[in-house]
């Protein structure tokens, strides 16, 4: 049994991040959760760049991606992650307010594992996050091989 995967949440809206984290906790997710406020910080962590925290070896990660973020958006983050041989195995789950079919199709084409639309309205939002929690629990998180 591998260690529980670390959830990376890339979400520029602090409110959304709070709501997501709270909902996931309520739905029984106890994994370590790292929150980055834009795509650049997220990539820096994954690719071990810059002064901030870096990804650790021997830890599995799961990436929750918002699409619309400043500087580098979610789509670009996914593109870069999917192009990297080592990182491409990280499950990516889109968690976004965008329900535009065109955007959705782009994400599926780039290889996202799942796509969750953040609904307006607390009840629906909570339900969706519950489903997200279940999904995270069910996904088998591969461990990234040591370099």
């Amino acid at each position, binding site marked *: 049994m591998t260690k529980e995967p670390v959830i990376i949440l890339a979400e520029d809206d602090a*409110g*959304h991040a709070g*709501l997501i984290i709270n909902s996931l906790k309520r739905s029984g997710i106890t994994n370590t959760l790292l929150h980055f406020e834009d795509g650049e910080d997220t990539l820096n962590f994954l690719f071990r760049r810059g002064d901030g925290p870096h990804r650790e070896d021997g830890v599995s990660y799961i990436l929750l991606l918002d699409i*619309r973020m400043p500087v580098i958006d979610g789509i670009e983050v996914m593109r870069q992650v999917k192009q990297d041989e080592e990182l491409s195995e990280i499950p990516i789950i889109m968690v976004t*307010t965008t329900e535009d079919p065109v955007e959705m199709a782009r994400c599926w084409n780039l290889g996202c594992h799942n796509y969750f639309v*953040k609904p*307006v*309205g*607390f009840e629906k939002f909570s339900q969706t996050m519950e489903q997200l929690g279940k999904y995270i629990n069910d996904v088998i998180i591969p461990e990234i091989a040591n370099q």
Partner: protein
Amino acid sequence: MIKEHMQNSLSEILDNIEVLVYVADFKTYEILYVNKYARTLFGDIRGKICWQSLQAEQDGPCSFCTNDKIITAEGRPTGVYHWEFQNTVTGRWFDIRDSAIAWHDGRMVRLEVATDITKRKAAEEELHRYEHIVANSTDMMALLDKKFVYLAANKAYLKAFDLTPDKLIGYSAVDVFGKVFFETVIKPNAQRCLSGEHVNYQSWFEFPASQPKYMDINYYPYLGPDDMVKGIVVNGRDISERKQTDERLKESESKLSEAQKIAQLGHYVFDIKTSMWRNSDELDDIFGIDENYKRDVNGWLHIIHPDYRETMLNYLQENVLTQHQKFDKEYKIINCKSGQERWVHGLGYLKFGNSSDPLEMVGTIQDITERKQQEIERELLHKELKQKNRELEQIVYITSHDLRAPLVNIDGYSREVGRLLKELFTILERDEISAEVKEKVDLIVKKNIAIAENHISTSVSKMNALLSGLLQISRIGRFEINKEKLDMNEIISDIVDTVKYQVEKAGAKVEISELPSCTGDNNLINQLFSNIIENALKYLDPERPGIIRFSGRTENGSSVYCIEDNGIGIPPDHKEKIFEIFYQLKPKQSAGEGLGLTIVMKVINIHHGKIWVESEPGTGSKFYVSLPNG
């Protein structure tokens, strides 16, 4: 001796004149004498029979023999008989004098002296022919002497003045034309002619027996054998018709030129063999050239704007002259005179003679600068508008999208606050808190907070619905449109199938007649008609059984569909508003977001179609949709 000498001298004389002389016996027709001239024509025929040797193909004495004319039955001579005859052997004409004389043996014999007049005869014949030509010419001809007195006139001349020869010949032209006309028109010209020059002029002439005629008059000097001017040969020809034709032609030419000026359109003829062209005046103005301009292919190219020269030369040589296509091109020129850049539209057709190679190209060139500028401006405007529209759609899309993110927070955190407050109040429930406070807290938690949460949540829902609507509308234009020929019978019956439940629930009936096809995006057209029929169902009159009718027709390349209902109808002042976003005719009664007809309008616009409504409140509505067909 003297007599013999005389005879020899006479014979010598007779042999040396170019006159035919012979003597023949009256009874035997034996030729007794021929002179040398006769011998050269007929040979030595002395002793032969005259009708056998002097004439051809005679079976006996000639039927035209003049013997009985020169001697009486009693043998008395009657004198000289003078006649002209064409000899049947030589074919030559002779002036003949016959007489009876006493021969040296005492008997009476026939003497014929004949002069060859063949040349004169030919001249006479020729003259006769000329006379004939002159007499029968429709031109009026006359000959006047130096004092303008008529010497001769042909039939046409006499007829025109309604005169007989004796009323004209010998009279002066003054008598015929009257003093004024003679002095002002005839005399000045005639005098010029008398000085030796050929005079030609045109003038109106009045005639006693006809309408005035416009005449072309020629005066030729009449020369005597000494080359001195003896008079005037007059030739007059009626050219009234030509004059009228000329005038009509001139008028139509001037009208054409005027029309060309107004239309700024010139025409040209391009001779393919010589590569030269000629053109109307208007084209001179369009090109800014004059009559000295070299009108060949290079001359044309020189007028064309440098950016278009190569294309146009290629077009002329390849498409027109090689492939024999019609010349039809808009191109830019530089007016040679003003240096201004102008747009022209050139049209031209090739003309073929009997060969398969074109002989010439005939066409028009029109200055279309104003139209072209408007077109360019319109295109620019259109582009700008499209760009602005795209931007606007993008703005709508992004804002409606981004506005949802805060909504998630507003709703989410209002609940979070509620939850936190409840937690707080659970703490306040403890015993150490007074009953009075508990009661107040209870009111706040159970009632007021719930109401506040409800308001927030309702507003969030409302706002969310609006944003969804905006997103939905803006999304219609964002997809790629895939236009194809659509079987509307199939599409409408599918749509009616999907709303079957609502139709039954409303107790309504849907009637569909044969519908023409149209060209459009399958999904969008489906949505368009779905929305219209849903609308019709929504606004049926509960007081009577609903009927919805689909019908269609084609009209000028469009398919026009009519969706007719017998519902509550639309008040006249609402007809425009129904297409506005979020507009609802009866907001309290109807579900939905008021987007249906807005989407319809958007789909119509994407297809460059049209929609209009005829409606009578209390009777029903007719929605007409016009879509391109093919």
